[in-house]
C-alpha cells in the first residue's frame, strides 16, 4: 500500500511541467519597461522578460528555476535566495551592453548590478522628452518615450510605451502611438541606423505617428554625414559617417522642416552619435 502510495505521489508530482506558464493565454504581456524608486539623482528601471507574463511563469524546482532565470533574464541566482513556489515575480533582466539605449545626452543609462528587480538606473540632467529603445531580440527594438520631470527635488520619469501597431505588419509602414524625435542607434563601424516618427495628420487605427522612411527627407548640412535608405522598415535610414564634429540636419516634415544637431564623436575608435 505504501509503495502504491509512493508511486502515486511520484506520478502526481511529475505531471506538472518543469518550467512554464501557470495561467491561461489571452492576457497582454506586462509592460517590458518599468520605472520606480525615483530620488534626486536617478530612477530605477527594470526590464521584464520578453514575451512572458512574469507573475504567471515559474518552475517547480529550484535547479530548473536557476537555470531558467539565467536563460531568460541573464541572471545568476544563488541557491536558497528564492523559496517555492519558484515564480519569476518582479525579476528584471540583467544589464548587458546594448540592451537599453537612451536617445539623448541629458538622460544617461547606468547599469545596476546585484538587485534582481532592477536592470539600470536612468540619470537625468534636465527635464524633457527622450526616446529610449530596448533590444528585445537581435532584430527587434521596442521604443519608449521617457517624459522627464522634476518635482519637490525628485525626478519623475513617465514612460509612454510607443510600440508599433498590429497593422504595421500588413503595411509598408511602421506606425507608432506617438511621434518621436531623431533617435540614433548604436553605430556599427561607420554606419548608424536612425529612427524618426512623424505625426500623422489623422490618427490611423488609433496611432498618431509613422516612421519616416524616405531618406530624401533627411538632409545633413555637413559633408561627413551621408544618409542611405534601409531595407528594414523598422528604421528610417542609415547615417554613413566619414568624420567627427557637429552636424546640422534638416528633416523635411510634411508641414515644415525641423532641425537637429548631431554630435558625432569617436570613442575607443567607435563612432558615437548624440543629439544636442
Amino acid at each position, binding site marked *: 500500500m505504501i509503495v502504491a502510495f509512493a508511486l502515486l505521489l511520484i506520478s502526481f508530482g511529475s505531471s506538472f511541467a518543469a518550467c512554464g506558464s501557470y495561467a491561461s493565454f489571452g492576457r497582454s504581456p506586462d509592460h517590458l519597461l518599468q520605472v520606480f524608486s525615483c530620488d534626486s539623482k536617478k530612477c530605477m528601471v527594470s526590464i521584464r522578460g520578453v514575451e512572458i507574463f512574469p507573475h504567471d511563469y515559474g518552475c517547480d524546482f529550484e535547479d530548473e528555476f536557476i537555470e531558467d532565470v539565467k536563460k531568460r533574464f541573464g541572471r545568476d541566482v544563488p541557491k536558497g535566495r528564492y523559496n517555492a513556489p519558484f515564480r519569476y515575480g518582479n525579476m528584471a533582466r540583467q544589464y548587458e551592453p546594448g540592451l537599453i539605449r537612451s536617445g539623448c545626452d541629458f538622460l544617461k543609462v547606468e547599469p545596476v548590478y546585484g538587485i534582481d528587480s532592477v536592470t539600470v538606473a536612468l540619470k537625468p540632467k534636465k527635464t524633457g522628452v527622450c526616446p529610449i529603445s530596448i533590444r528585445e531580440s537581435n532584430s527587434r527594438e521596442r521604443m519608449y518615450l521617457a517624459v522627464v520631470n522634476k518635482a519637490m527635488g525628485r525626478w519623475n520619469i513617465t514612460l509612454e510605451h510607443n510600440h508599433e501597431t498590429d497593422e504595421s505588419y500588413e503595411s*509598408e509602414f511602421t506606425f507608432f502611438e506617438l511621434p518621436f524625435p531623431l533617435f540614433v542607434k548604436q553605430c556599427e563601424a561607420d554606419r548608424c541606423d536612425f529612427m524618426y516618427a512623424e505625426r500623422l495628420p489623422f490618427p490611423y487605427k488609433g496611432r498618431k505617428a*509613422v516612421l519616416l522612411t524616405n531618406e530624401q527627407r533627411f538632409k545633413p548640412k555637413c559633408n561627413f554625414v551621408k544618409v542611405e535608405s534601409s531595407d528594414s522598415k523598422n528604421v528610417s535610414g542609415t547615417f554613413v559617417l566619414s568624420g567627427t564634429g557637429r552636424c546640422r540636419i534638416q528633416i523635411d516634415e510634411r508641414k515644415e522642416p525641423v532641425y537637429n544637431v548631431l554630435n558625432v564623436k569617436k570613442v575607443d575608435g567607435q563612432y558615437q552619435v548624440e543629439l544636442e
Partner: protein
Amino acid sequence: MKKLIIVFVFLLLACSQENRENAKDEHPKANAPADWIFPNGSYSWGEALNACPEGYHLPDKFEWENYIVHTADIPNYKYWTSSYHVGYMKEYSVAYVQDRKIYSEFAYDGRKSVACKKDEKKEAKSFLDKIAFTGTAFISKNKTNCLAGHKYIGFEDNGLYLCENRTLKKVADSLDFLQDSVEFSADTVVLNLRRMLPCTFGMNGKKIMTGVNRYMYQCYDKNWHGLGYAKLNPVQLGYYKDSLTGVHFKTIIIDSMEWSSQNIYRSMPGEECYENKKMHCENHGRLYGENAREACPADWRLPRRSDWVTLFGRFGLDGAYLRSKDDWFLDFKENKDVGFTIYPAGYLDKGYKGFGMVTGWWSYDDENRLYAILFDGEKFSHDYAVENKKFYIRCVRKRPEN
C-alpha cells in the same frame, strides 16, 4: 495508517475527477465532416505541424473558414492552423481557431488541439471577395518557422523555396513556366507582396499573379507551378461629356468596364467641397450624401461590389497601381498609377476627415444596399455605417461597343 488510507482514497477520487475532466476534452465528432479528424491530446506548434497522419494535413485558414461556415457545432477549443506569419511586431504570430473565429496569437509556445483534414485536389475557386486575404498565410523573407514540406515563392526574386526543418531553403532561382503568356482570369489573385507565400491545401488550385512582374503561378499539392506571364488587355484612357447636364470626367477602360477616373463634380442638393474649399472640389470632386445614387449621368451608375472585386483582381488590393503619385502623406515606395488616380481626398463624418490619408466612395453591395468603399493608400475596406456621412463618387458603365 487509517489517515494514510483516507488520504489515498481522497487522491484516488481526485484522480478520477481529473480523468473525468480529461474525458470532457475528447472532441465531439458528430458534426464533423467525414474528411476531418480530431486527434486527441494537445500539441505544441512544432508538434502540430507534423501531427496529422499520412493523407491528412493541418488545415489552413481557408479550410477552417469553410469548416466554420458549414459545420453547426464546433467544439470550443483552440486549434492550431497552418496559416501563420512572422511579422515585425508579432515575431511569432500563429493563427488558431476558437469560438468559430480565427485568431492570431502573440506567442506560439502554448499547447493547443489539432484537427486534420483529408488531402484532396480542389478545383480553383475565386476567393477575391476575401478582401482580407493579404496578411494571412505568408512569411517574411529570411525567417524561419515555415510550414514543413511546403514550397514558397519569393515575390521579390521569383525564387522557389522549400521549407525544411522550419527553415526556408532556396531550391530554384525561378520557376520554369509552362508557357510564355497566360490568359488572365477572374479567379486570379494579384499580390503585390514583398514576402513569401506558401502553397497550402486551402490554396490548392488558386492562381496568383505578382503585381511586380505579372508572373502567374498555380498552387497544386503543396507546390507552386509557374504558368507564364499574365496576358492583360492594356487599359485605355478616355474622356466623357454628357451634353445634357454638362457633367464631364476623364475615364479609364479596364477590360469590359469603363470607370470615371476622377471623382464626380456635379451640383446636387447636399453636396459640398472638403472643408468648403472650392479648390478641393476642383482637384478632387465633391462630397455627396445618400442621394449619391442619382449623381451619375445616364448610362452610368455607382459601382457595385463586383466591379471593385474585378478591379482588385486585375490590380491587386494594395492600391499600388490605383493610387495617385501625389498628395499622399505616406511616402509609398511603389507608385504605378495606371490612370485610376485615387487621391487621399478624405470624407465627411461629423467633420472633415482623412485628407492626405484616406478617401471613400459610395457603392452598392451585392444586395443593392448603399455603402462606402474606403481606401487608405494600401488597402480597401468597406463601411455600412454611412448615416450622415459624405463620400465621393466614381461612376462606371459597361464598355461601349466600338
